[in-house]
């Protein structure tokens, strides 16, 4: 058995242990078990990545799982290639740090066991999603992360807002699950296999014919719901109701990137080259993906400017960065997309965890207008947040700069198409907004005059060392980009000299930060006037639209229900009762106990039977031509 299965088995085992033996283990041991399970999974992932280095790629079969005649590739098997190895290492690595962080962060919680059981379950399902070698098995992980996310968003189950946020996230995720299922149906009927390596071959994709665009769209809808892209993004900001480590792990570093992973995994479908030309249909899909990605990136960044809740700012920023990744995927820069995914996992997890420390320190205060003045009191935390912010804003030599740069270059392409130039411009604009809102959050939190009183709740050491590791990773990850892109894409990224494009991006980042510093240093809370808010919050408008639609539907349903309810709840049961009563009274009379009546009944019914058989046989033989 390959070590790759340990990556799946250990978190699953940890989850079971935490769920069942929390009482006997106690708090410290539960957290230890959960973290160690993830550490083991991380080691196994690294070992898998090493094997991939040696053997390039391999498939590990565990057992056959589903048997559907006519459809192959439904085994319980793992695919290990550079893409899945990268994802596995990122997921388990970040997850391990966040588990360690959670041991300190959740120390005061009552439901410690439930939290770690869910968190481990999430890692197991995410790993299953990543390592599945066919779409059907991936769907299992896909649904599983949806469930784990649901249970973790709604972790504070006594809070109505958390519960409704969990429900919302689950519902929208199910939209994506259903879309992915439809894609599976389409691909299974046409290609008669669901294994990635099999159905992504040109001769199989040819079988899809005109349904290629349908399959691609279904895959994209599935990815959009999971990755909070327009117009299925509304669940992500609300998901911040969950504990902060959950936001860091699930809603920043790993689960939301599953959509990007799916796009990259199915890249041949979107890059289907027919003869020499890119198939027009596939090209349409790419254009849609790029435009939606750009729109998401820009609108989410605008929305982030208007937010005051620290976690919601980061949530919108996550959406925006995911938009970048989809833009890159649409432009065919898959390596850049995965590179950004990895670096984003590091620096966004770092930012979230730091935010968690800050919120912890201020006893649950999340509004950045009520923070300030923490820079001198928590120097290390402030430094960690700064590193994360600089990476997010795209300042060299931090990881974010390189990955964002490779995406922008990928989108710009050879620069011959107006469309690509426009999209690049949107990307640059988004980068400007990104550096501004990041800077605003940083400055208002740490350098503006303090807006709070009382004692600070300083973090324990188990909470700070993961920050240090993540900060280190954020600094270092940028330099591995070239190799990563090469192993994912199969070819080296184009060698670009440090030219105008990069300089623009860098300048934009610096300008954004500068504006933020100069505006908010004094404690001023807004740059844009309040009147502009409705325009900035375009993203949230969709939420309102959904709500009003639902409200109007519910109003209609209410009216119908008020009319129908008396009928259904009173008349119908009464009718049932009466009919039962009358029927039983009637049938009781048959049970007379009189032997002669019984024998007479037998005689009559057998006579009728003879009559029926006689005439039936006459009728049948008459029809037979006698």
């Amino acid at each position: 058995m390959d070590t790759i299965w340990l990556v799946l088995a250990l978190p699953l085992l940890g989850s079971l242990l935490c769920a069942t033996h929390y009482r006997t283990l106690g708090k410290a041991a539960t957290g230890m078990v959960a973290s160690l399970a993830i550490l083991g999974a991380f080691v196994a992932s690294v070992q898998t990545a090493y094997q991939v280095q040696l053997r390039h790629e391999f498939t590990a079969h565990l057992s056959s799982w589903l048997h559907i005649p006519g459809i192959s590739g439904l085994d319980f098997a793992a695919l290990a290639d550079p893409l899945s190895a990268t994802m596995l290492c990122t997921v388990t690595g970040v997850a391990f740090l966040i588990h360690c962080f959670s041991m300190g962060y959740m120390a005061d919680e009552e439901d410690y066991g439930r939290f770690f059981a869910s968190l481990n379950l999430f890692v197991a399902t995410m790993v299953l999603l990543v390592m599945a070698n066919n779409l059907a098995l991936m769907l299992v992980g896909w649904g599983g992360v949806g469930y784990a996310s649901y249970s973790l968003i709604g972790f504070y189950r006594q809070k109505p807002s958390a519960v409704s946020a969990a429900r919302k996230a689950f519902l929208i995720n199910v939209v994506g699950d259903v879309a992915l299922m439809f894609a599976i149906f389409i691909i299974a009927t046409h290609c008669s296999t669901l294994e990635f390596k099999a159905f992504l071959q040109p001769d199989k994709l040819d079988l899809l014919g005109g349904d290629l665009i349908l399959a691609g769209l279904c895959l994209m809808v599935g990815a959009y719901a999971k990755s909070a892209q327009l117009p299925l993004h509304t669940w992500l900001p609300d998901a911040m109701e969950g504990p902060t480590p959950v936001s860091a792990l699930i809603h920043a570093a790993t689960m939301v990137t599953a959509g990007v992973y799916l796009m990259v995994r199915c890249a041949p479908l979107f890059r289907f080259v027919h003869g020499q030309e890119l198939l027009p249909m596939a090209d349409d899909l790419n254009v849609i993906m790029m435009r939606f990605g750009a729109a998401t990136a820009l609108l989410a960044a605008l929305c982030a400017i208007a937010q005051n809740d620290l976690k919601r700012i980061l949530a919108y920023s996550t959406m925006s960065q995911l938009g970048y990744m989809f833009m890159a995927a649409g432009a065919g820069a898959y390596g850049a997309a995965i590179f950004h995914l990895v670096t984003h996992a590091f620096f966004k997890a770092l930012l979230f965890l730091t935010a968690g420390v800050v919120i912890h320190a201020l006893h649950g205060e999340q509004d950045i207008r009520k923070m300030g003045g923490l820079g001198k009191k928590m120097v290390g935390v402030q430094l960690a947040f700064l590193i994360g912010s600089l990476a997010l804003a795209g300042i060299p030599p931090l990881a974010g700069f390189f990955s964002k740069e490779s995406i922008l270059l990928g989108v710009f392409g050879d620069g011959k198409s107006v469309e690509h130039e426009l999209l690049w411009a949107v990307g640059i604009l988004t980068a400007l907004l990104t550096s501004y809102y990041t800077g605003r959050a940083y400055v208002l939190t740490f350098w503006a005059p303090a807006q709070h009183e009382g004692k600070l709740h300083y973090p324990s050491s188990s909470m700070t060392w993961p920050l240090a590791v993540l900060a280190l990773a954020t600094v270092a990850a940028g330099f591995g980009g070239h190799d990563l892109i090469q192993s994912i894409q199969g070819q080296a990224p184009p060698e670009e000299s440090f030219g105008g494009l990069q300089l623009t991006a860098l300048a934009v980042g610096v300008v954004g930060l500068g504006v933020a510093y100069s505006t908010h240093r004094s404690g001023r809370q807004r740059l844009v006037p309040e009147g502009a808010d409705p325009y900035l919050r375009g993203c949230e408008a969709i939420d309102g639209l959904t709500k009003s639609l639902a409200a109007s539907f519910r109003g209609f349903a209410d009216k119908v229900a008020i009319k129908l309810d008396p009928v259904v709840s009173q008349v119908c049961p009464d009718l049932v009762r009466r009919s039962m009563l009358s029927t039983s009274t009637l049938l009781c009379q048959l049970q007379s106990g009189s032997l002669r009546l019984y024998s007479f009944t037998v005689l009559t019914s057998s006579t009728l039977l003879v009559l029926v058989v006689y005439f039936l046989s006459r009728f049948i033989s008459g029809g037979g031509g006698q």
Partner: protein
Amino acid sequence: MTEGMITLGLSAVLFAIGSVGVAIRRNPLIMFMCIELMLNSANLALATFSRYYSRVPETLPDSIELASSTDLGSATDGAVFVFLVMTIAAAEAVVGLAIIIAIFRTHKQVDADELAELKG
């Protein structure tokens, strides 16, 4: 009116008489005898078919050359069934009479119209 028709018609008439007897009599013993009559008439029909109907599939071609295929059944099939029915009838008669006697012991009388304890 062939020879077989006589016994076949007789079986129909006996069956009808037996059923009427079961329907109109009050004495369970006589009802029971009528049931025996019906069983016997069914036996008679089986025996008749065994004698006159065996090996005739549906319609018969002019040159009668019947295969000895076992699928069609053999001539003695019906007779064997008559024998089996007889055996079962014997068992049934013994049990039935024992029940009637048991009822008589508890009720001191045997009248079908008086036995209505199973009224629902």
